[in-house]
């Protein structure tokens, strides 16, 4: 049994718009609605929070704030978009400074409509969020708890089909980000991928006999090039990518330097690699839609 349901702590951020929803969230804490009777506490500290309540539409200035709060919350976590502004940008969606709904920045689990959103709806949304929290916890446990359920191993040519399928799935979000569906991971054919097995080293992570993540690398001189880190979308944010990266780095002890690249708009990827000790050192134009950001890490330092 999980206790997440019994004690969800929330953090509340009001992005922009009219503040109507903001006030309704606070109204939930008053004696009339008394959220605390469900064990809900408004913490104001992302590191203590389980549920992220966002009201109002996202604007250009607070994008990073929202992203930052989200990244600081420990797993498992759930995001609620409260009010029509947070859902889609609402009446403010055409303003020059408004980027749109919260899901432009971070994955949203529950959308609660309303303008302003009613306290009853907020409570209902939180209760729904709890169910998702519970599911995430189960998945998280399955992955981080291990118990032989998740294995990371070298992939062989027989896995090429599965990996290709996963690759196309995992790169969808990137393609949407750049509005460019001609990305090479999406257009790669099975033959090309099988060819890759000749000169690259592949890792796969398997759960319940299914490949849910993969990464590949090859040596060039002193440098180990790591690429195509993919994780099945519904298994993302559980530290799987981190595990794969650590694992593949360990397979190349001879490398003096590791190099990865990603698109310039892929903030999540850049942040992810930065947390692993990578630093940006080069930026290259590949098309008018996309720049490539190269990141490097030296093997001897940055090791904890």
């Amino acid at each position, binding site marked *: 049994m*999980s*206790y*997440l349901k*019994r*004690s969800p702590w929330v953090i509340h951020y009001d992005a922009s718009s009219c503040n109507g929803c903001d006030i309704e969230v606070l109204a939930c*804490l008053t*004696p009339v609605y*008394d959220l*605390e*009777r*469900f*064990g809900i*506490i*408004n*913490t*104001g*500290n992302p*590191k*203590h929070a*389980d549920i992220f309540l966002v009201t109002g539409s996202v604007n250009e200035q607070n994008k990073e704030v929202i992203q930052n709060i989200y990244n*600081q919350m*420990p*797993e*498992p976590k759930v995001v609620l978009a409260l009010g029509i502004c947070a859902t889609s940008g609402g009446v403010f969606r055409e303003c020059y400074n408004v980027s749109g709904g919260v899901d432009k920045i971070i994955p949203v689990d529950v959308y609660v409509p309303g303008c302003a959103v009613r306290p009853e709806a907020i409570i209902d949304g939180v209760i729904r969020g709890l169910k998702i929290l519970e599911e995430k*916890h189960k998945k*998280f446990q399955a992955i*981080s708890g291990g118990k032989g359920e998740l294995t990371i191993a070298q992939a062989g040519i027989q896995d090429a089909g599965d990996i290709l399928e996963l690759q196309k799935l995992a790169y969808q979000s990137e393609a949407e980000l750049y509005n460019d569906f001609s990305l090479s991971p999406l257009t790669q054919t099975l033959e090309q991928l099988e060819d890759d097995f000749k000169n690259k080293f592949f890792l796969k992570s398997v759960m319940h006999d299914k490949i849910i993540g993969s990464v590949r690398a090859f040596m060039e001189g002193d440098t180990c090039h790591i690429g195509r880190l993919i994780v099945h979308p519904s298994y993302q944010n559980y530290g799987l990518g981190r595990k794969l990266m650590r694992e593949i780095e360990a397979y190349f002890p001879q490398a003096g330097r590791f190099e990865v690249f990603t698109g310039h708009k892929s903030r999540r990827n850049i942040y992810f690699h930065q947390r692993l000790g990578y630093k940006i050192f080069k930026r290259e134009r590949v098309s008018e839609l996309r720049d490539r950001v190269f990141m490097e890490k030296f093997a001897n330092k940055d090791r*904890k």
Partner: protein
Amino acid sequence: MNIFLNILLYVVLAPLAGGLLSGLDRKITARMQSRIGPPILQPFFDVLKLIQKESLVVRRSQNFYIGFFLILVIFTGALFFTGKDILLVIFAFTLAGIFFVLAGFKASSPYSFIGAQRELLQMMAYEPIIILSAVAMYMVTRSFYISDIVSFSRPLIYYLPGVLFGLLYILAMKFRKSPFDLSTSHHAHQELVKGITTEFSGRSLAMIEVAHWYENMLVLGFIYLFFARSPLAGVVLSLLAYFLVILIDNTFARVKWQLALLSSWLMTLIFGFGNILILFILPK
């Protein structure tokens, strides 16, 4: 053998009682604000949940300090509830507090820095009266041993009302409650985010919470010493003191640290020291 049984009982029962008490606290607080409030067992749910969460750290060593904090608090309590030297109890308790502060500093975020500094200030504010009360108890009972203090022929309150008052004054600091919840608090005071506990999550936060339960029991035990002659009255009155703290918590806003420090020193001087002075002058 008996002493081990005692320690075992204490290690198991103290957090249970402490957790229940803090659940009761939240319920009473809610009622005072005419809310329904969470279930009494809520603090246990909270801690169990925290254990299930991911533990994010800025530096790994910060959890090491928290571990020491918890162990030392338990150790202090074990000394106390087995009737050992009260001075040793106080020193161990202070050491535990220092580890907590170190953990806060180790986490190196501006919020936990301010929280840790304030925690230090609070320690400066409440330490004098705690040491004075040990001295006062010695003056009355001629022993630093808690077992002797408890079995003294008359309740200490007859001799030491001023010291008790001084202790009650700083009680809110130990319970992290208004008006002295400077370093961290359970309420939605958010200008410091969460003060000293800001950078702790998951398991380490759960450890802080459990240590806090132990601490609370210890502090209540301290109050109990003043009425130890009649155990029932002692328990009732120390619970009453807890209720008083809750009432004050819901009545007052947080004060500035200057006022907290000055006023508690003043109280210590007037009531604590004054009490001892009178004891000294008056013939037995």
